[in-house]
């Protein structure tokens, strides 16, 4: 198996690409072929490896960030021509997505937040120009608040939608009070050009399952910074499901404010012809005894289908007892598709419970196909069973049955197109 597992590397960067797979002919292993070629990221000659480390500037001030040129580590995988309209736009007043909450529950409030509201102080800071603009645009903020100690029995579903060429900026704050338990679903539909920041505050001992679904139409362009701030002994499970859109680029950052935090970041994406689906993560272990688990899976099919997964995990000197592991799996259903995968682990203390990562990108496993066909199952049905199985681990543990069914049905539809 050509995946990499690392417990001690101070800094490891791997890149897996279709080209690497082609060069070696692909090695089959389990669910998918695996082929991770350790390689240095593309960077100008003369830079030392230390320079590969992302800058990680965080600021509320848009002017602190430059407009990217495409040479930056953070932007080198993104087709800038397609996101350029987002950079060219000037945030207008109160022009976000149409955001509506389904139903009503005790302990839940939802509505606009006035500029200057104290809630806006102490939020996790934006990590790039777009998210800084989204968070600072006047009247852009909507808040979903879950009261202290509330135990919600139903998922809170927020429908976010818009269609049109105008670039929209929006800022959603999700505040989960101390000891509260909640499941929140953010459901993005329509064909928008949208720049979002979602700031998620988990109070001490809070528990949140957050599912964000990107079911955009074919022309949507969406940039998002999903910024989590995790309190002492809080538990977070975030699931990103990215199926639609022309270009979707989601940055997830996790900051811990106290020990005992337990975070799972999971994601599935399915890229078709011409789709660029990018997920970047930065888990910043700055306090002791927190746990993080990352599981991201993507399937790709068709010409110019492209997924990017960047998994940065930082264990700072103070973060003793950290336990972290990240996993990325990419399944190339057609040879023209391309998956980039860069796990990156930086460890500044040796006093940790565990740290590792694994990444594998490969083609469809012909041995699985043979096994299923040898039981009479036609090739197209067999392929669908395998891909469905590939995603099932993440999708079928979302915990919102109606949503799980809808997502698996959407994946089935994409597969019909793939194998028809």
């Amino acid at each position, binding site marked *: 198996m050509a995946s990499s597992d690392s417990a001690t590397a101070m800094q490891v960067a791997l890149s897996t690409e279709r080209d690497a797979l082609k060069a070696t002919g692909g090695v089959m292993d389990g*669910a998918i072929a695996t082929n991770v070629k350790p390689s240095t990221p593309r960077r100008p000659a003369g830079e030392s490896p230390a320079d590969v480390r992302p800058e990680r500037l965080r600021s509320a001030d848009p002017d602190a960030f430059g407009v990217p040129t495409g040479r930056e580590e953070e932007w080198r995988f993104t087709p800038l021509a397609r996101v350029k309209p987002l950079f060219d736009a000037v945030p207008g007043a109160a022009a976000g997505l149409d955001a509506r909450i389904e139903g009503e529950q005790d302990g839940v409030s939802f509505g606009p937040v006035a500029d200057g509201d104290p809630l806006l102080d102490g939020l996790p800071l934006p990590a790039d120009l777009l998210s800084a603009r989204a968070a600072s645009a006047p009247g852009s903020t909507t808040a979903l608040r879950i009261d202290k100690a509330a135990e919600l029995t139903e998922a809170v579903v927020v429908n976010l939608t818009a269609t049109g060429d105008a670039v929209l900026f929006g800022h959603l704050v999700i505040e989960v009070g101390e000891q509260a338990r909640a499941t929140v679903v953010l459901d993005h539909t329509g064909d928008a050009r949208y720049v979002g920041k979602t700031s998620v505050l988990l109070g001490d001992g809070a528990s949140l399952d957050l599912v964000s679904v990107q079911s955009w139409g074919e022309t949507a362009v969406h940039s998002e910074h999903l910024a989590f701030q995790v309190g002492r002994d809080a538990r977070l499970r975030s699931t990103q499901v990215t199926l639609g859109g022309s270009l979707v680029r989601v940055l997830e950052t996790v900051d811990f404010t106290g020990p005992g935090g337990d975070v799972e970041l999971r994601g599935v994406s399915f890229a078709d012809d011409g789709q660029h689906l990018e997920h970047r993560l930065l888990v910043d272990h700055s306090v002791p005894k927190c746990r993080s688990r990352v599981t991201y899976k993507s399937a790709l099919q068709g010409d110019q289908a492209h997924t990017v997964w960047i998994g940065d995990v930082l264990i700072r000197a103070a973060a003793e007892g950290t336990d972290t592991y990240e996993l990325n799996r990419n399944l190339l259903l057609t040879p023209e598709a391309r998956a980039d995968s860069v796990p990156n682990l930086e460890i500044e203390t040796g006093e940790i419970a565990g740290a590792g990562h694994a990444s594998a990108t490969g083609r469809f496993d012909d041995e699985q196909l043979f096994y299923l066909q*040898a039981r*009479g199952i036609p090739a197209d049905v*067999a392929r669908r069973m395998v891909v469905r*199985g590939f995603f099932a681990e993440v999708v079928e543990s979302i915990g919102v049955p109606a949503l799980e069914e809808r997502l698996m049905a959407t994946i089935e539809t994409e597969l019909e197109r793939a194998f028809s």
Partner: protein
Amino acid sequence: MATLEIRDLHVSVEADGTDKQILTGVDLTIRAGETHAIMGPNGSGKSTLAYAIAGHPKYTITSGTVTLDGEDVLAMSVDERARAGVFLAMQYPVEVPGVSVSNFLRSAATAIRGEAPKLRLWVKEQKEAMSRLEMDPAFSERSVNEGFSGGEKKRHEILQLELLKPKIAVLDETDSGLDVDALRVVSEGVNRVREGGETGVLLITHYTRILNYIKPDFVHVFVRGRIAESGGAELADELEANGYAKYGVETAATPGRSLPTSPVLPGVVTTA
């Protein structure tokens, strides 16, 4: 009565850029109700015969024919062969993560029978078949072959054999890696299928051990890609006593003669 006829079968496999001839003219006829044991040393091509019949893309048929009741098996895709009634119990069943055993079995039964079995009857049928093979009902919710022990994988293969009721069943070293209990359970499963009289069994094995549980009607000695000698069950006893030496191969036909255990595949007994 179903009949599988293999005539002058030559098969090659591509290795290191060159075609290597593995089967060099196999002739064999298997009828429903008969049990044929193919015995031979490692590397003689036994498994190649099994996979060539099932249609694995790795193997190229260079000449010869395989027909089932006169139909050209070699012209069929892998799944068409299975639907025509050919079943291969694999030596190393493949893991399919995320696909549950119950989903897999029902999909296979639907394909083989041509219509989805009625759910209530199917649940009962599957449960009873599993209980006969001493399998825990919780098994059906696990992913296909994922994390299964060697014995569990083989029971799962025989479970499929019993549920799919093929015309011809090829069992590729089903006995390898099994302890005595598992061997007994698996053999009983095969014997139940034999007693039905509707299935011809081709039992591929390296050792005579499984033949204590499954009595073959015919024994064929497989050497260098073809059948070197055929006979009745007594031929197995002769191999038990003398090994393959008379065929110019220095290897034993019984375990326990200081054969090393492979370091790569635990529980699988191999010869050097």
